[in-house]
């Protein structure tokens, strides 16, 4: 057989694999997500032993390992305690699309949270030079009728201008 020349045509395939998922929130995360959806409120729960807040709430205190059954509203404003600026976006697991960069994520100590507990979410700001610890920020909720009981019912946090 004569030598086979390598193809000039180069084959390239783009494919989006989608795997349907289904899970239960459980009572504690369910209470948190329903409060976001129905009341635009952020619920933390409080450890009966050490008194620290957990937000999002969880069944037991991660430190004391006792059931944390008392819920308290926190936020929607808080203080930026730390942040990350992301320059390389991983694909969104829901859509498979990669988002615009840079964007920032925030660790927010919501007003009323105890023990220095922070809540992690997106920080909506295109000027990354403005970011610094101690900034006052607030949660911006998805509009009525569009909230589904997901963490994205909070669209993002935004800087409260004029507050230190």
């Amino acid at each position: 057989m004569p030598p086979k020349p390598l193809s000039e045509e180069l084959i390239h395939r783009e494919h989006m694999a989608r795997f349907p998922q289904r899970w239960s929130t459980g009572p504690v995360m369910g209470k948190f997500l329903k409060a976001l959806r129905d009341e635009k409120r952020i619920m933390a729960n409080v450890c009966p032993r050490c008194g620290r807040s957990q937000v999002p709430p969880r069944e037991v205190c991660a430190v004391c390992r006792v059931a944390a059954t008392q819920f308290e509203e926190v936020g929607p404003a808080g203080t930026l305690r730390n942040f990350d600026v992301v320059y390389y976006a991983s694909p969104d697991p829901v859509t498979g699309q990669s988002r615009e960069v840079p964007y920032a994520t925030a660790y927010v100590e919501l007003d009323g949270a105890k023990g220095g507990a922070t809540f992690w979410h997106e920080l909506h700001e295109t000027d990354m030079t403005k970011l610094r610890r101690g900034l006052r920020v607030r949660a911006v909720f998805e509009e009525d009728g569009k909230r589904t009981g997901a963490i994205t019912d909070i669209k993002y946090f935004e800087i409260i201008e004029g507050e230190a």
Partner: protein
Amino acid sequence: MAAESDAFVVEGTFALPYNYFAGRVGSTWLVALRDEQKIYGVRHPQTGKVFVPPRQVDEKDFTDLTGDWVEVGPEGRVTGFTVIRYREPYQPLPVPFGLALIQLDGADTSIVHVVRGEDLGQLSVGRRVRAVFARERKATILDIAHFAPV
């Protein structure tokens, strides 16, 4: 206090973008499936080992293998297999179907592909199978629609 009635079910998706570049050797192979309906391998110039699917270099000594393309198949033998009988949303085909390692005639390595037709309960190592080409071919591995028992 959270109650059981606070729990609800979330329907979601897990999406994975996939970007595959076949490269020059892989493209040559896929284009031949599409345009010639032929399956090729590459032969090592010293050891004579035939690799299917083809690869640029030998896995051990890195000798360039792309100077000697040989046609293999379209028949071969099953060297290992499993039968998929359960339905899941991500299965590529309606069940049941077989997934088999197939060593094509003239090849020294096996490829993984789908086996359909006949009673899959009769599938066994050593079973002779034959490539069935898709009518509509797009230069993908599924230009071979499946292998059917001979």
